[in-house]
């Protein structure tokens, strides 16, 4: 079973790669067609003063896929990309489930499994977004790239053979604490994709034509990206708060005798939390530019990566599952 899990994960990474290639193909072929434009829940909903209104916005109820138009090559490749992406998601799920079966427990007992689970959530959220709004498909290239990189890193530096749990992990808090953190982190991680693309698109709109900004040509409207970024982060934040700052301490109290002890993992969860709180503040403050706020969200992403990889590799702590294989 463990062997099967490894094979499924390898297949999942390959499928994500294939999806990435397809997304890239659409990216290259696709004109700045309907997709690019219809990507938006349009600006006219953005109320209040100073909402930028761009003129190539179409009404939000514009049918995006059903529209009877000539199907260009990009469109076709894009649909294939989504299909392959979904296949990869299924393989990913299979890898996770077989891992859990092999270990006879929830598949998040060590760093490798934790990353598999977190990236699975990230991927599932991404799939949900792309199915609900086919228009954001142009982000697929970046979403799958992020997934491939993280999964690759996980299997190279964190691979751990299937093993049982140490007694400290025998607790229902294990499931509550870790699952909420995994879901929260997964959403935060995938939230960084629209965040980065918003900054790129925004730069492109401002006339920047240097390298990363040239990518902005095909991605959805800046406003839509920014709003998607906020929605994902605002959804993930309470989950992460619950997992890291309530369930975690409750468990730590029962297990280690203190609810908060500045273990490196706790420190970095605290840092991530503070940074994301900073993002929400910045976004709620009219005098802070949306680009600045979004940079803060990306900073949060960096702290999440530090939490996923860095803390496990660099520091010694109580989180026993944190030991890399």
């Amino acid at each position, binding site marked *: 079973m463990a062997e099967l899990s490894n094979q499924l994960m390898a297949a999942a990474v390959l499928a994500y790669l294939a999806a990435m290639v397809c997304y890239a193909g659409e990216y290259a072929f696709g004109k700045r067609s309907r997709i690019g434009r219809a990507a938006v829940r349009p600006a006219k909903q953005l*109320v*209040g003063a100073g909402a930028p209104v761009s003129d190539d916005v179409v009404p939000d109820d514009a049918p995006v896929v059903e529209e009877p138009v000539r199907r260009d090559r990009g469109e076709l490749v894009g649909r294939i990309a989504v299909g392959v992406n979904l296949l990869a998601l299924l393989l990913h799920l299979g890898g996770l489930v077989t891992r859990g079966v092999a270990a006879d427990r929830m598949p998040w007992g060590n760093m490798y499994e934790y990353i598999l689970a977190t990236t699975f959530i990230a991927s599932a959220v991404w799939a949900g977004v792309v199915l609900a709004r086919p228009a954001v498909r142009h982000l697929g290239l970046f979403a799958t790239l992020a997934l491939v990189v993280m999964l690759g890193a996980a299997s190279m530096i964190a691979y751990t053979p299937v093993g049982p749990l140490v007694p400290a992990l025998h*607790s229902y808090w294990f499931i509550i604490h870790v699952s909420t953190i995994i879901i929260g982190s997964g959403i935060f991680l995938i939230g960084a994709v629209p965040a980065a693309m918003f900054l790129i698109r925004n730069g492109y709109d401002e006339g920047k034509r240097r390298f990363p900004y040239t990518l902005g040509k095909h991605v959805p409207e800046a406003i839509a990206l920014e709003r998607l970024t906020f929605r994902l982060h605002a959804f993930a934040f309470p989950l992460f708060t619950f997992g890291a700052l*309530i369930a975690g301490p409750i468990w730590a109290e029962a297990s280690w005798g203190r*609810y908060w002890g500045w273990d490196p993992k706790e420190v970095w969860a605290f840092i991530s939390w*503070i940074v994301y709180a900073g993002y929400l503040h910045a976004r709620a*403050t009219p005098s802070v530019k949306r680009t600045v706020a979004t940079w803060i969200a990306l900073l949060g992403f960096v702290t999440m990566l530090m939490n996923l990889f860095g803390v496990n590799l660099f520091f010694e702590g109580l989180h026993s599952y944190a030991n890399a294989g």
Partner: protein
Amino acid sequence: MTVVEERPAPSSAPPPRRVNRLWALLRNSWRQLTSMRTALVLLFLLAVAAIPGSVFPQRGVNAERVTRYYQAHPQLAPWLERLGGFEVYSSAWFASIYLLLFTSLIGCVVPRLLDHVRALRQAPPDAPKRLNRLPQHAEPWSQPGVPAEVAKSVAAGLRRRRFRTRLREREDGSWTVSAEKGYLKETGNLLFHAALLAVLIGVGFGHWYGWHANRILIGGNELGFCNTLTQYDDSTLGPRVEPADLPNFCLRLTDFEATFQSTGQPRTFSATVGVSEDNGPYETRKFTVNDPLRLDGANVYLLGHGYAPILKYTDRYGVSQTKVVPFLPMDAMQTSEGVAQFPDVNIDPKSDKRDSTLQMGFEGLYLPTSPTDGSATSAFPAENNPMLYLSAYRGDLGLDVGTPGSVYSLDQGQIAGGDLKKVSGDRPHALKLGDTWTLDDGTKLEFVGTRPFATLSIRHDPTQVLALVGAVVGLLGLMLSLGGHRRRVWFHVQPDADLAGSPGESGGTLLTAGGLPRTDYPGFEDEFKALVKAAEEGTP
């Protein structure tokens, strides 16, 4: 704030303007401090300030690693010490950041709270003059009915949708309906920030009024202990706790069970203890990792376990002494190290004088499962093939000098000074369970057996419940705050001049409507359309 202190003392006759300026400065500093920008900067400072605590070892987390850091970086360590690098989270600079942040928070939240209370008690404001200027607005439409009646039914419909609604009649005979919804968002936001304060207070008081201690508890009724400071290996009392405040209880370990996976990974631990609270009779209780023993005024946590070999030493006068000494585990397979010291042996019964050159010490390893290849690391954490590897020392153990040494190793100074000499061979002597080792002077050491021991942490934190309640309330507030949307809608209902001959005569009404979301709310357009549609159909 600090700027104020640095100002030169006012001269003998301070001009009144100066006071004003001082006041203005104070007020401006306060405004600056309570601005959102400052809050953002302070949040970041707090995040950055937390980083060193994960990079450098922290005394509160693991004091031993601080010691090791001192050995590895003798130059750097004292400097770090001075900067609070080993106690980041109780350092003055870390505290000053979060205290400033919380001052800012109070300064920010209190005025908003007052505003909010005012807003909650006020009716929604009257409609602006031109509703078609609002972000959402509907084209004017007419429908039958008298304005007053139509307005009332619109208002009723809004109320049913849990809008706070107010009807106003204007001098020209028209009516306005003002409605607002989403007050919970601000309520949630205030609740969240207030809850943060509660958490801070909970954490702070816990530090002042809490205490904790560690103890190794060896199995056996005679080896129990009662809750006094002298019984602990180490302890920390909060600044407001006196030793006499500790609750009265006694503990003894009656059984310890550990099960392991075939790989040696532990599967379960469970400790059975006898507990006596307030001098009552001993009751049997069981606890495990993740499920502490909750007593009145203290919790007992099971952190680890190990083995304590029972060693019987028979001296040259035939007198024997038995000691049970915990050996500390060094790896996952419970290879453990420890020491047995016998200071009161080889006492000549005639003179009854202790000979400090004849004290005995044994130092070495205990392997619960000695591997077949004879190497000196345990192969499994359970006791499948117990083996002791000991070296014997004779001489002055150095226990009388009064400097408390480690109870887990011999005094290296005594060995180096030649007062304590190794009297066994170069290689440690191996003892199986039940073996007796006869030393060079004819004295004997017998490996009688082992007892389990549990590593316990005993703690009391009086305000951890407050911190928990604060955190949960904060989360609820946060969800309200992030999920809510504050928005206003207005309807203007006036007599329709086209339908009715003269105003007031029953004929028809002309309606206009406008909506204003007060926060970024993409769904507002749909909601507004639905409200207008309901009003048009007259069955809101």
